[in-house]
């Protein structure tokens, strides 16, 4: 090895060491652990135990179902919302743009526990402001934490609130990269604003939106904080239990690391598969 290289690696060593210890090794290790029976001491190699259990576990299918439902509803709604927010932020008519940009981005910065607490207060059945508002329009109050469907809706709303602004900022960057004179040309071509949005803006934003979708899919597949903190650890009765929660429960409540590892690998594989599908369907038509 040339001296130069050796010095370079010496400088990189602290990072590589940390990367190997806390990143690479856990990935390999958990793969190996997923093939072990971790409910006996010492652990034993039992390749079909965890994976076999996964295939037949109703709790797994419940978590998978919940996760996919959240994914299918939350991601499109959030991306659509984020696009609208980005267009709004990009409007030349908008005053105080930096303020809005900050406001939209702020939820990402707020601590999860704090925001979860606020959501719990707002959606509290008896004295939450949301039910008060619902009451004023003459509807009966919703028990957000006791009704499975309502709890799912709550999780979806919370996740959307937290990440829509973040995606809007990314999409805004894409919007700003579209030259203004393209729209001027379209205006002179007698193409209306709405048509401009659907025939110029959206097609040109497609790569960015796709990127946001992939990010969101990966995020939602790992969803944990909201159902854990807001809807009482996946409650009521597992109605909002996600794969992330199931993993947590198996790993850190039941200390069954083998099964938790199998679930972790399933989450990762699903995230990759869904993202690839997205990219495949979103690719440029040739």
């Amino acid at each position, binding site marked *: 090895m040339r001296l130069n290289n050796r010095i370079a690696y010496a400088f990189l060593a602290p990072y590589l060491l940390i990367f190997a210890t806390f990143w690479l090794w856990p990935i390999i290790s958990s793969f190996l652990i997923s093939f072990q029976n971790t409910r006996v001491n010492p652990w034993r190699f039992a390749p079909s135990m965890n994976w076999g259990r996964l295939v037949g576990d109703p709790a797994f299918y419940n978590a998978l179902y919940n996760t996919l439902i959240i994914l299918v509803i939350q991601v499109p709604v959030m991306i659509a919302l984020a696009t609208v927010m980005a267009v709004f932020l990009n409007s030349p008519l908008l005053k105080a743009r930096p303020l809005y940009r900050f406001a939209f981005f702020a939820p990402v910065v707020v601590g999860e526990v704090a925001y979860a607490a606020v959501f719990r207060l707002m959606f509290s059945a008896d004295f939450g402001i949301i039910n008060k508002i619902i009451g004023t329009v003459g509807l009966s109050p919703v028990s957000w934490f006791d009704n499975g469907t309502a709890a799912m809706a709550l999780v979806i709303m919370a996740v959307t609130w937290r990440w829509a602004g973040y995606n809007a900022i990314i999409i805004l960057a894409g919007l700003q990269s579209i030259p203004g004179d393209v729209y*001027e040309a*379209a*205006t*002179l*071509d007698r193409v209306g604003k709405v*048509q401009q949005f659907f025939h110029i803006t959206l097609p*040109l934003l497609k790569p960015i939106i796709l990127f946001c979708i992939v990010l969101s899919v990966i995020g939602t597949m790992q969803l944990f904080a909201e159902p854990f903190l807001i809807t009482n650890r996946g409650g009521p009765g597992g109605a909002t239990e996600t794969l992330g929660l199931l993993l947590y429960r198996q790993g850190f409540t039941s200390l069954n690391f083998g099964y938790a590892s199998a679930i972790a690998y399933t989450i990762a594989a699903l995230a990759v598969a869904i993202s690839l599908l997205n990219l495949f369907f979103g690719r440029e038509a040739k």
Partner: protein
Amino acid sequence: MAGLTLKNVIKRFGALQVIHGADLEIEDGEFVVFVGPSGCGKSTLLRMIAGLEDVSGGEIAIAGTVVNDVEPSERHIAMVFQSYALYPHMTVRKNLSFGLTMNGNPKADTERRVAHAADILQIGELMDRRPGQLSGGQRQRVAIGRAIVREPQVFLFDEPLSNLDAELRVQMRVEISKLHKQLGTTMIYVTHDQTEAMTLADKIVVLRSGRIEQVGAPLDLYDDPANQFVAGFVGSPKMNFLKARIDAVSADGATAVLASDPGVKITLPISGRPDVGSSVTLGIRPEHFVDAGAGDADLTVDVDVAEHLGHTSYVYAAVSGEPLIIERPESRHAGSQDRLTVGVPSRRCFLFDAEGQRLR
């Protein structure tokens, strides 16, 4: 097709006024070039005609109708942008047909117009490519094609050739000129390049700092500039300006004596009566010097550099430190000595007062 009228048109961006009352008459079918240095307001004026900028004061009329409050889409104009502004995600064919399709134009008619434009501009082979797969010149053609397809009453061009290399620029210039002959539509063309203006225009509008300095046919501007700015802007290489003083005023006109060489006295047949002793500027174009002895006065200059282009030569010289350029056609030895003497024909000279206005 339509003519245009600008009446005391004003444009302000906030407190900054960039167009100071422009008056202009453009005939139906005319090729008008707005020319002037960068930042003088050419694009702004063009964009106001297009409706892309609001008018802060005055009136713009197209075909006799005031359009100040008419939407750009209803003005029946088409514009070719400096940056081309093609739709990046559409093929050339879609770029051309997009506007018509969106407006529900019958498919057969759209196809006919697209084919016609493609034919005129010879872009038939490019129809299925996207802008990213085209060269600068090809993109420019597509941008022009998109304007043609609209069949507008007025074409607007904003420095359409400035992103092309020199050779292509000449070629496209000729094509735009041909296009105008072929279509006969009113065209307004913005450029900072006086050569483009001189070669394309029926009528040139010279702008400076948001004011129209002069309007006229190319050769009228060349032969009869209204002021020192126009005199210096039109013609290449630009007119020489030499400091001078009025020596005498008589029935024959005014006699000016060069500050740099008091031996050179030129009498110009002007009818104005400038004050004797007042400072003026004497203008003469590089190509208007004659052989020593053949003019009304002889001027001896110190030669700096000579450029020989074959058909002509340019001598970069100075009189007492005042720079000037002298063109010597068909001479390959001009400027080979340290000093050069040329004749100054007085009928080719111009006089400008201290404010740069022409003394006539």
